[in-house]
């Protein structure tokens, strides 16, 4: 993994359509994003509102859907550093201004059939979900933060999809 990207791969005991729904159904998203996360109509070019926590609520942090190819590939732009994040990180106002000069990162989800049913040809029993979060600068504070968060979100997404 390059210092400018973050990758997390998991395998989910479900079909690609169920995994796609977990990525683009706004109610479903809240279940693994601790009640927040992104909300959008998930059409290419549409805005994404982001909820970091209950106190801040949904904000338009200039995020957009860049690609949406159901049920294969979803790409969206990430948010910049925000003043509301300073309560979680020890950034001064001056540091925040510097951090905001970093290029904006991007999230790409790739959904692929992994294991086909041995009994029912064409039915996918396990789906591979690859998260690529890239366009960070080396040593990025944002990358440190998302590296902590994504394994938890992706683990929870897998659990909820598998529970049906």
């Amino acid at each position, binding site marked *: *993994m390059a210092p400018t990207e973050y990758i997390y*791969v998991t*395998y989910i005991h479900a079909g690609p359509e169920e995994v796609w729904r977990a990525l683009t159904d706004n109610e479903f998203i809240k279940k693994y994003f601790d009640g927040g996360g992104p909300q959008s109509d998930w059409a290419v070019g549409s805005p994404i509102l982001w909820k970091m926590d209950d106190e801040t609520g949904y904000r338009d942090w200039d995020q957009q859907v860049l690609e949406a190819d159901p049920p294969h590939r979803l790409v969206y732009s990430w948010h910049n550093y925000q003043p509301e994040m300073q309560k979680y990180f020890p950034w001064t106002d001056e540091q925040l201004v510097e951090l905001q000069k970093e290029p904006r990162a991007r999230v790409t989800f*790739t959904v692929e059939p992994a294991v086909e049913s041995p009994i029912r040809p064409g039915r996918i029993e396990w789906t591979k979900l690859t998260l690529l979060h890239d366009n960070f600068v080396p040593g990025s504070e944002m990358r440190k933060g998302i590296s902590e968060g994504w*394994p938890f979100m992706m*683990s929870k997404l897998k659990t909820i999809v598998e529970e049906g």
Partner: protein
Amino acid sequence: MDDQVFIYDTYVATTRERLWDALTNPDTTEQFWSGNRLISDWAIGSPVRLLDGDMVRDEGEVLDFVPCQRMSFSWKPHFAIEFAAEQGTPIAFAESEAGHETRVGFAISEFGPQLRLTLTHDHFAPDSKLFPIISFGWPFYMASLKSLLESGAGLELPAGAKVGRGAN
């Protein structure tokens, strides 16, 4: 690239005892690790072997073992070399790598109502060709382990099944 480290966190809704048993009981490892049995008496310095029937797929020695908390062992991944050949992309491994011992560690920590299982695989030879192979393999087995403990369904590859390689 030197100093390659593979780290993979999985959050699992289970107990420390069940998670530990899944990693150290060969009857359980074969349910999530493509039928392979991980065999050791887990005393420091004892051999650790990953067996497919009678065949030793990978092997090493116990370096650290604190029940229900953490363990690590050295690891000569013979299997990764065979895997590359099976996939039709044989890799020219350096002489130094064929006998090189990497290191695998598992650690369990609490995170809210669930457990975080952290896998760390490091100590690769300089310019190791193994790294992309293990980076492909571990998420597969860790996802299988999580499903096995949470829903009872480990990820089994039916004969002839193909696994999507995707971004790896």
